[in-house]
């Protein structure tokens, strides 16, 4: 299990003001008191706006950047004291085209990275074949990467990140720029890695559907600090987003409108009645789904419902709301 306690990272940034003037020194807090937990077999989301500290957190947990203070362990190995040991257990997949050698072919890249991780040669050969198939590069495995498209380079990045069969995998925007089919396949593979192969995964992404589809737990961070944590549905509840119900009827007599308003008041919901293209629209927004009660009230008043729309709360909106509040 990965466990971090009060992890902090402060960058010292020097800003030059001129050739002969001394540079001013500024402290930038990228991560503050981060306490995270990633268990094997679980997919954990690390979400936040740009500059929230997601990538810095990943770099610290991967042993590339030393934290300013705080500790973290990976399977009880102290990551601050023994970065080399923890590097054997983790890998990072980032979106984009960098982090691979463009003059080498995909196979040569994977052979090189396999050697850096001391993967036994026979095992490496079999693994390279499997990963190349997984990311759909079998036909271009022996072509230099510089001739690849952006998506192909990114797919190779994914294979590179899996070359040491890491026990913990950090995915930093892994599907950015990938075509739909490959992104879907990758999501299925990530899920399989966690569920079937007991790997612990930390995912940062701006695609909320990915979070909803994959994550067991989410850490929402802002300005380097965890502001909320929980399962995706718990965060939605936490944000008190509510459910919207929109009903269209031909006409709404005063008595029926009064019944709807009374219903909304009973459940502490808001109601808006307005003109629609061919009739009247009723919009009720409450903590729970009031569609059944509204339908009953309208049919009891002898009205025919022409259209019913239910707007479920979205994780994206919940996260946005929580970030603004946090």
């Amino acid at each position: 299990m990965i466990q971090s306690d009060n992890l902090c990272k402060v960058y010292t940034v020097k800003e030059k003001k001129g050739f002969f003037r001394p540079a001013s020194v500024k402290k930038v807090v990228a991560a503050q008191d981060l306490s995270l937990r990633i268990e094997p077999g679980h997919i954990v989301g690390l979400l936040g706006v740009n500059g929230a500290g997601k990538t810095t957190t990943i770099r610290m947990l991967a042993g590339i950047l030393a934290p300013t203070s705080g500790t973290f362990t990976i399977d009880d190995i102290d990551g601050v004291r023994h970065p080399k040991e923890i590097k054997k257990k983790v890998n990072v997949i980032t979106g984009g085209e960098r982090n691979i050698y463009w003059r080498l072919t995909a196979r040569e890249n994977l052979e090189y990275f396999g050697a850096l991780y001391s993967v036994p040669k026979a095992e490496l050969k079999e693994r390279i074949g499997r990963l190349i198939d997984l990311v759909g590069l079998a036909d271009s495995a022996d072509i230099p990467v510089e001739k690849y498209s952006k998506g192909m380079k990114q797919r190779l990045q994914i294979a590179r990140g899996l070359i040491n069969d890491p026990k913990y995998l950090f995915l930093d925007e892994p599907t950015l720029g990938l075509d739909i089919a490959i992104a879907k396949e990758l999501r299925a593979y990530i899920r399989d890695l966690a569920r079937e192969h007991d790997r612990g995964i930390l995912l940062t992404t701006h695609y909320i559907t990915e979070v909803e589809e994959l994550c067991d737990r989410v850490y929402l961070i802002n300005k380097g600090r965890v502001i909320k944590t929980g399962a995706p549905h718990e965060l939605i509840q936490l944000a008190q987003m509510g459910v919207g119900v929109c009903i269209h009827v031909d006409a709404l007599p005063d008595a029926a409108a009064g019944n709807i308003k009374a219903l909304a008041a009973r459940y502490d919901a808001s109601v808006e009645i307005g003109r629609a293209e061919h009739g009247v629209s009723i919009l009720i927004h409450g903590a729970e789904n009031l569609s059944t009660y509204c339908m009953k009230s309208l049919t009891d008043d002898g009205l025919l419902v022409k259209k019913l729309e239910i707007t479920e709360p979205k994780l994206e909106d919940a996260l946005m709301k929580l970030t603004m509040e946090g």
Partner: protein
Amino acid sequence: MFRVLLATAKRNFIVSRRAYPWSLFVGRVITGAYTVLISLFLYVYLFQGQTNTLFDTYTDNADYLAFAILGAAFFTFAIASIMNVSRTMMVEVWEGTLETLLLSPSSRLGYMLGSLLEQISRATLELAVILLFGWIAGARFPYLDPVQILSVWGISIFALFSMSITLAALMLSTRDTYISQNTLFILMSLLCGVTFPIQYLPAWVQPLSHAVPFTAVLDLFRKVILQGHTVGQHPELLIEIFALSVAYLALGFWWLHRSERKFLQKIFG
């Protein structure tokens, strides 16, 4: 470490072959060949084939053309080795691969030695070609004892590697390659006795020459080829080379480690 060494050497070999199929090799050989020609013209047209008694005293009556050509060829070998090994981390920065490299638990020493191995194999070929040019130009190398030459070659690799590590640290800490490497190479060409014996330098400058291990390596190389000495006959040079190289290595790795940490703060911060 050994696997990382071989993998890095193989990777660099493939990258160099695809990036510069012939141009890099030809470019370096041409530079060496020009140096041979300059030495030849100086000796034939300026010195009229004569050297003064001071030169004879300083070099134990060595032939100037052979002296200069050995210096130029070995200098080309040195700068090729030092330059590429010291720049290797900066190249990772330019290529955007530094983060993946640092992410792996691989040995940094193995990585650096891998860069050295690939570079030395090419630089040795270049050295041989330049010496051949020199021989065609009329320089004579009277003592070609393979055991002694190989010994100096091995010792020189150790010395050049130590210089490369220190230069790599300097490059990472300044985030510059061109000014750092070119300043060092110009100083080496002036201070290390490449085209003239260091005894011609002012007395106060000569200690600086002995602060660079390449000076003693080049001296030993010339003594073996021009005077037929064995490596064992010059313990004073061996001590100088090893002491300086160990000091450069210790300083280089200590500095490299610090520079790397600071560098990461700068690029990620």
